């Protein structure tokens, strides 16, 4: 469409430059010709960049806005994410493959067998599917926050005890010890970053209604699950709810509190 418009404008301007009487001067003909060449370049670039044409004309700054909407939303059944493309809905299902084996516990025969299983799994479906192995930072956010709360509580107790004229020494020692222990625990938690590895498959389906796309994606997922279960011999399931965010949002790859605790630790080690 955009190619056609640009191409027609280019052709029209060239013809205009030809038929324009010489009385208008060669400079005008030349300028029209130059504009025709620019439209010729636009016509070719529309092969790759037609998605930018509309937003470029609409934007009034150096930031071209392709979309102000969220990249996706969760389906009502909470087992797939949805995206609207033109007038169609695309539902995408994430399927977890729980494989917990290491090459260190395999002999050569098992290693070969495992690689063959992976190779077979990749070719299992005719529909486009994406097989992913993800290494992410283990989410210790909840545990770190619990530790921080416990430390604050212990320190609060110490402050309360110290307010007394005759503080209970044994209680004071108890809370000081508890605080020190929790701090050490927090230190060791943030000192080392722990990773986890997850394998999953993604498959998409299209529908003119939201429920159509979801039902189609669920059907494709069921077929894929039965094939993958046979190959790997493990219970394979669809990922649902908040768990999906681990595979979609970058901040779930590097959890916030875990990361800030790590950053603080790095900063402390540089400063102190």
């Amino acid at each position: 469409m955009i190619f056609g418009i640009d191409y027609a404008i280019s052709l029209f301007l060239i013809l205009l430059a030809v038929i324009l009487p010489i009385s208008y001067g060669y400079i005008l003909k030349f300028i029209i010709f130059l504009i025709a060449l620019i439209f010729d370049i636009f016509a070719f670039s529309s092969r790759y960049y037609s998605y930018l044409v509309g937003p470029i004309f609409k934007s009034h700054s150096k930031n071209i806005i392709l979309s102000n909407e969220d990249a996706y939303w969760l389906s009502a059944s909470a087992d797939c994410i949805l995206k609207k493309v033109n007038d169609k809905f695309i539902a995408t299902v994430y399927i977890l493959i729980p494989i917990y084996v290491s090459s260190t516990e395999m002999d050569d025969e098992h290693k070969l067998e495992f690689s063959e299983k992976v190779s077979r799994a990749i070719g299992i479906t005719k529909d486009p599917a994406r097989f992913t192995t993800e290494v992410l930072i283990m989410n210790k956010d909840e545990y770190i926050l619990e530790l921080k709360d416990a430390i604050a509580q212990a320190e609060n107790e110490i402050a309360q005890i110290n307010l007394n004229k005759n503080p209970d020494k044994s209680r004071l020692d108890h809370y000081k010890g508890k605080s020190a222990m929790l701090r050490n625990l927090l230190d060791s938690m943030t000192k080392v970053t722990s990773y986890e590895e997850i394998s999953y498959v993604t498959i998409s389906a299209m529908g003119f209604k939201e429920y159509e796309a979801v039902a189609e994606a669920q059907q494709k997922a069921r077929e894929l699950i039965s094939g993958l279960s046979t190959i790997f011999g493990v219970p394979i399931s669809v990922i649902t709810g908040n768990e999906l965010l681990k595979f979609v949002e970058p901040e779930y790859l590097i959890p916030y509190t875990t990361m800030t605790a790590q950053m603080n630790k790095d900063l402390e080690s540089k400063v102190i």
Partner: protein
Amino acid sequence: MMDDTTLIYLALTLVILLISFALLGSIAKGIYYDLALLFMFITALIIGVMSQIDYVLFTGLTSILGITIKPANNYMINKKQDAIIKNVNSLYYATGYVTANLFPYTFKNENPPEDDEERMAQSPELWENIVKSLGFPFKFHVFSIGLNTQSTRDELEGKRSYQEYQLSKALQGNSNETVITNIQRQIRILQSKIDTISKGEKPIATIMYIETTSVGISEQEALDKLSSQISSIQIAFSSFDVELKRIVGRELYEMFKFNFSLPLTIKDASDLFDQQQ
């Protein structure tokens, strides 16, 4: 390798230049004629370069003009077009992509089966060594599309016949050893692929890529960390015989969209990736 659609675009836009050249006498005279010729040459050059390496021109342009792109709410593609940035609670998350088309899928076909098996047996250990050596999050994606068995077989047989014709021409024409060896290698690969299909394996097309994310307290810090992570990935995965190129420009945007919806047909997918595969 240029796809058919791009070839049509290229041919049609070059036709405009040919028409211009034919009519140039009626458009300009004297100095304007020379200038028009010069601009026609520049236009042909730009179109030619774009047909081969459009991402270099595009990223160069956005870098110079400082243009950023917002692909969705909360996300931004930087001006170098090599990372997608998300700001969450004043922390910047930068995500970048690297192609990782496993060349062994080509090479293994010309190797004897025992070597192939050896490679397959080594791969779990190689993978674990890579995971252990990389101290940051990353994702390895294999996007696969099942192909029609019969048409793939017919296509491969057609290519083999063409290579055999080339080989007979090379042998008759006393071509040098390198050319002959190269054609023989191509024939071996094609024959091996045909044999694999004959054994009952389904033919598939794959797009493989690696995604990594870094975090920083400023945009620049996140981008710097991302570049260093990508370099580490390129070093670590080199043991897998993979071609590791950082993805930039429009293909970065397509990769970003992959996280939320996949292409539904082989045509959709191949239209997106034709240059940087």
